[in-house]
């Protein structure tokens, strides 16, 4: 007997502040007006998506000592815009990326518990860490955190927040008007946390929210990040959206669950993925090429080459050959506030490889950047894309995808209209929401039930 079909989970990532987002297209709308967020969220909800996802950046990026001006710049406050979106949607989950370095557990726990109440149980928290002094310049604490402590702070931050969420059990509010008893327990919300990073005590002032705790996402890819996800997260926002890499990552992370007493279905793997759709596969391939050229202007190509070369390349012609000069590996990095540059661990080797690639294919700088960056995950007709997504999920390359459209706010519309009905026809995606909370959409137990299970197992 073949195993039953997995149900696919789908989410919508509001287009971000990198060159995946094509702002130069005539169809591109505002990235900051609330109407864009409303359009995007309602499209996701119309398509019965699990949730909407917002990324984070707490300082505007710089390159060569100046604010980076080639991509979309500017975004709203995550909690505030998610609370407003709760007013214009009924079922859609609301996932916010919130940093554990430039916040305090009491405040963040309060904000997520409040968002969970105000959305009727639809909040989720993508816990990210950071340590850079560059971003720290915007905050009271500054860039105080040694790099190797970021996960220990993140783990303790989340553990502390969980203690706060759990400090109310859900039965404390009696509100018996006749008897004059509002609270059953004067000690409701009591907490004491003493640890390496946080030493706090008192009474949490937000009662237990519908989901108990927000759904927890983790996004880091390091060994520590994977362990953190296996021990503490409900879902992973990963970057492995290909079949081969996806399966390897999926297997690796799911195999880590057992040692924490957790089952495979208690951690969802949801890679970020882009898509380009057209009526036929051939048309979609053509369109995808056009989108890549929109994403990488000549100016963008030079700036991306600078990520590796770590020197000012503004005198180079983007339509010309790669620089003969080698990357500068001596000092401070030319690009600030961009995690991506850490991927180039050996710039000299990358430069060598890219020169060989460019020579072999007769590529200009711009051709090279177009061809080495911005992988487009799903390109094809609606039927092709629906089939591919389903194949990947059934093959355990993921449990679904967090889709990143390249046009704000209408880029999701075509996926909602053309691909989702095909997935529904195949019986692998919901046709109606079956519950009201994000935990329900994701098939995750309420934390009270989950902890009972863990104790029992």
């Amino acid at each position: 007997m073949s195993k039953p079909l997995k149900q696919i989970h789908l989410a919508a990532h509001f287009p971000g502040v990198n060159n995946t987002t094509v702002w130069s297209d005539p169809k591109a709308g505002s990235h900051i007006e609330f109407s864009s967020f409303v359009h995007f969220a309602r499209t996701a909800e119309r398509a019965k998506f699990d949730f909407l996802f917002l990324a984070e950046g707490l300082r505007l990026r710089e390159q060569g000592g100046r604010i980076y001006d080639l991509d979309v710049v500017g975004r709203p406050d995550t909690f505030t815009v998610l609370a407003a979106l709760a007013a214009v949607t009924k079922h859609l989950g609301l996932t916010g990326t919130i940093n554990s370095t430039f916040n305090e557990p009491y405040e963040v726990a309060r904000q997520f518990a409040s968002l969970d109440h105000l959305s009727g149980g639809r909040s989720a928290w993508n816990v990210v860490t950071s340590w850079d002094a560059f971003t720290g310049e915007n905050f009271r604490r500054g860039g105080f955190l040694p790099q190797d402590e970021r996960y220990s702070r993140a783990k303790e931050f989340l553990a502390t927040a969980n203690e706060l969420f759990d400090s109310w059990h859900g039965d404390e509010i009696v509100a018996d008007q006749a008897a004059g008893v509002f609270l059953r327990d004067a000690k409701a919300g009591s907490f004491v946390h003493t640890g390496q990073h946080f030493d706090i005590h008192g009474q949490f002032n937000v009662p237990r929210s519908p989901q108990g705790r927000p759904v927890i996402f983790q996004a880091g890819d390091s060994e520590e990040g994977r362990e953190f996800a296996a021990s503490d997260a409900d879902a992973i926002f990963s970057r492995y959206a290909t079949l081969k890499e996806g399966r390897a990552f999926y297997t690796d992370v799911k195999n880590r669950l057992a040692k924490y007493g957790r089952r495979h279905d208690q951690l969802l793997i949801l890679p970020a993925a882009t898509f380009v759709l057209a009526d036929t596969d051939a048309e979609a391939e053509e369109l995808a090429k056009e989108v890549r050229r929109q994403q990488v202007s000549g100016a963008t190509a030079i700036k991306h080459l600078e990520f590796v070369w770590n020197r000012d390349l503004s005198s180079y012609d983007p339509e010309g050959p790669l620089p003969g000069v080698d990357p500068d590996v001596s000092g401070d990095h030319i690009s600030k506030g961009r995690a991506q540059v850490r991927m180039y661990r050996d710039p000299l080797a990358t430069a060598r490889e890219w020169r060989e690639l460019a020579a072999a294919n007769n590529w200009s700088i711009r051709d090279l950047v177009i061809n080495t960056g911005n992988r487009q995950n799903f390109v094809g007709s609606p039927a092709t894309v629906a089939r591919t997504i389903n194949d990947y999920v059934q093959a355990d390359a993921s449990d679904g995808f967090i889709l990143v459209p390249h046009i704000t706010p209408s880029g999701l519309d075509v996926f909602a209209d053309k691909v989702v009905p095909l997935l529904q026809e195949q019986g692998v995606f919901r046709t109606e929401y079956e519950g009201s909370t994000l935990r329900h959409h994701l098939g995750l137990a309420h934390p009270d039930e989950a902890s009972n299970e863990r104790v029992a197992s």
Partner: protein
Amino acid sequence: MSATPASLLHLAVALDGTGWHPASWREQAARPRDLFTAGYWADLVAEAERGLLDFVTLEDGLVLQSSHYSEPDGRTDQVRGRLDAVLIASRIAPLTRHIGLVPTVIATHTEPFHISKAIATLDYVSTGRAGLRVQISPRPHEAAHFGRRTFPPLSLEGIQSPAGQELLTDRFDEAADYVEVVRRLWDSWEDDAEIRDVATGRFIDRDKLHYIDFEGSHFSVKGPSITPRPPQGQPLVTVLAHQTIPYQLVARQADVGYVTPRDAGQARAIVAEIRAEQEAAGRAGELVHVFGDLVVFLDDDQAAAEDRRARLDALAGEPYTSDAGIFAGTPAQLADLLQELVEEGLSGFRLRPAVAGHDLPAITRGLVPELQRRGAFRTAYEADTLRGLLGLARPVNRYATA
């Protein structure tokens, strides 16, 4: 700049739980079980908007409510627990069209960078109706929730001692820095910074983004904000003030100060003090509203209002006292009082409903029509933004060069 006709006064309502009387939750009209739902707050704000009020404020705090100023009281017979006020305001914004939304933020423990973008975002989601009320907290048990510093025990009476005043000065100095940072960040993008110049590939003109480079004794903030300048340019900044130290904050940094005079003479003296501080701060030419705060029990006849107050006091087990004046009477009597205080220089009022479910509708359906009959309150919303409703121009950006 559309100055408000002198005869018109402004009205705001301060929302806090089921109302300001600690026994308010036990009234028929209260909905204590709904306090932690969006629907509860949506209904209250819709009622306030029906009454054409300028704005609502939302109380907040980072500790459980307490009948003691600076420590928990362990009581179970009053409302305890609350949701984040900025998020309540944002949740309500898309459901309303005209009314201003002014949540409380605690300057002592939060990050000015986060709050600046949060209120800017509230301004975006409300299309120009956001403000904040900045509050300090010298409470030791509130500081213990953050674990970054400790404050000595402090009673309400102790605030008047030299040590108490020094503590208060330090907290208000920090709050002044906080507001300065929040305001600079709102201006850190010029209005036309987003250019989308396809020819050069530039999304923004980075010469129109500005570092704020704030350095103070409590924090330093580099900027610019990650959020573009909000629709109002500068959302409303408001402060509740009971004495000289916070009056200075009102005069230097605020658009609206809430004050608590007990009679016309006190109102006159407070307004004079704030105007003098305003002049000293170089803001003499700027419109700064001084609103009177009043707790209200409103009924169709005075005896009913007084009976209700007595009944609530009996339920609470003690007479209700407040930092603000307490009014119990009819809409006509309240209108008389408000108009008398306007003569002393107050330009509006922030009314604190004793019972939200009773006294808010009494304000919107009793007081407002009474004031309208007297030609003292608007009969329709006349502006699209909160600043507009208050006769405040959209400010020029401090960083813009012509």
